């Protein structure tokens, strides 16, 4: 009996487990998932909670709904990964030996890494929306907020869902309009990037969009500390931005156990070959989803595309020990732009996001890098597809590698 252990039963862990269920012979294979949390979170939904577009029930379901026999699910914390001896130690003392290990422990926010962030004002004038409790706390504050200066700050990259801060800002703009108070709110986006986004074409187009919405971008802002009493953030080059309400995307780091087990870089991300997602140091460890250092978007779409391709090649790899460079870094994301509209970007390791059309079989083309109401509905429809199709390991009619069809060369 060959054993696969999957650490983390979030988006990537659950999808890959259900893919294994389809391709493996369970008389010969055993697949075990380990996760301390019994709840599965639809993380893209956290963005909508502060604006009361979604509530808790829209974004949580029991993990057991998606992981059924012959898959095994152990609810436990992982104490250590002993990669030299191919085994995992759990918090309760259980030892799980493996032939192949899948690390899918993702990344989490670490507000404690920024001095001042947790010193008395966390949950009061300093908020986030990257977890369910933080998004709910922000919702409660926005409900009674009288206006002032809203500062949205990304501490450092990489972050989960790199477009979420922009979406949050544009949805805020819409929300404050709806509340009849936009004229009493100033919105500032302080980012460590040199513009609204990483890649030039998208950065320019998104930058223009923000400007048209009267949102100010403070580029190259690398935060050193928060001064919670004076209500200001201070950058390493001593720029200061005062706020009435700070929404932060704290430092994102991989799981502590990755660092503790000596498998991670300075952010507890596992170094991998970006084209196969195999750990550089261990040929029987693969890192799927957000937990690796691959320079792909940390997003569910990326996890989904890469896992489609990983499972296609896995059995060949078991047999021959060889892997082609199957993954091109393909990601696509809906970006909510407010007022019931959205846009979409589609890109990979080498091709930056471009404007154009994205072909979606059976439904019709989505507009790339241009606002449309259809993209907004696409995003909302995606929640249904996530719970009912994606997590269960079923195929979506989307190509896992990026295509240039429909994109405009600029």
């Amino acid at each position, binding site marked *: 009996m060959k054993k696969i252990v999957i650490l983390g039963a979030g988006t990537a862990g659950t999808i890959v487990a259900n893919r294994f269920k389809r391709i493996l012979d369970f008389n010969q294979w055993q697949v075990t998932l380990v996760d301390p949390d019994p709840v599965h979170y639809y993380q893209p939904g956290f963005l909508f909670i502060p604006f009361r577009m979604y509530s808790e029930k829209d974004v949580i379901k029991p993990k057991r709904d998606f992981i059924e026999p012959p898959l095994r699910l152990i609810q436990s914390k992982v104490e250590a990964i002993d990669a030299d001896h191919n085994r995992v130690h759990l918090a309760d003392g259980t030892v799980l030996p493996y032939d192949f290990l899948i690390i899918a422990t993702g990344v989490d926010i670490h507000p404690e890494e920024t001095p001042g962030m947790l010193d008395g004002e966390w949950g009061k004038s300093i908020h986030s929306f990257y977890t369910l409790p933080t998004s709910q706390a922000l919702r409660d504050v926005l409900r009674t907020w009288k206006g002032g200066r809203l500062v949205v700050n990304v501490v*450092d990259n990489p972050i989960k869902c790199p477009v979420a801060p922009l979406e949050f800002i544009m949805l805020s703009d819409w929300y404050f309009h709806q509340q009849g108070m936009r004229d009493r709110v100033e919105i500032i986006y302080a980012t460590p*990037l040199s513009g609204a*986004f990483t890649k030039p074409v998208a950065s320019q187009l998104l930058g223009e969009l923000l400007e048209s919405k009267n949102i100010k971008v403070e580029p190259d802002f690398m935060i*050193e500390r928060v001064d919670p009493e004076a209500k200001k953030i201070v950058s*390493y080059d001593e720029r200061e931005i005062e706020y009435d309400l700070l929404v932060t995307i704290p430092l994102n780091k991989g799981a502590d156990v990755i660092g503790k087990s000596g498998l991670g870089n*300075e952010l507890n991300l596992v170094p991998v070959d970006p084209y196969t997602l195999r750990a550089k140091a261990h040929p029987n460890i693969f890192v799927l989803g957000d937990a690796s250092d691959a320079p792909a978007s940390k997003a569910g779409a990326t996890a989904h595309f890469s896992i489609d391709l990983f499972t296609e090649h896995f059995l060949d790899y078991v047999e021959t020990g060889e892997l082609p460079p199957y993954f091109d870094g393909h990601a696509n994301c809906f970006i909510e732009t407010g007022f019931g509209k959205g846009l979409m970007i589609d890109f990979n390791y080498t091709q930056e996001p471009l404007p154009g059309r994205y072909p979606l079989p059976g439904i019709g083309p989505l507009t790339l890098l241009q606002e449309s109401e259809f993209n907004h509905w696409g995003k909302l429809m995606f929640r249904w597809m996530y719970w009912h199709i994606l997590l269960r390991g079923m195929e979506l009619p989307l190509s896992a590698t990026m295509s240039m069809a429909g994109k405009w060369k600029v």
Partner: protein
Amino acid sequence: MPTRVIAGKTVEVDAEGFMTNPNEWNEEIAVELAKEEGINELTPEHWKVINFCRQSASANGKAPTLRAITSGTGISTKELFALFPKGPAKKVAKIAGLGKPEGCV
């Protein structure tokens, strides 16, 4: 791929002016690129960071992140911002003839 002449040498650069072939780099190019970035004189501290980044990139195939530079050189983030104002990781990568550091996306 566009090219440009820096310190008398023709080198390949990308759309944002980052050199694409680290082997075409030399110290004269670094001095010239530093001036373009507003750094008039490269001190021994600057060179310590540049050399670390060159070594790190040749070992890992990519320019190091800010966190990797601070842990690798022992120079604090604050000092790095004083040496290479605004975005130290990006600025050093440019001066050291390395590609643009991989950010988010």
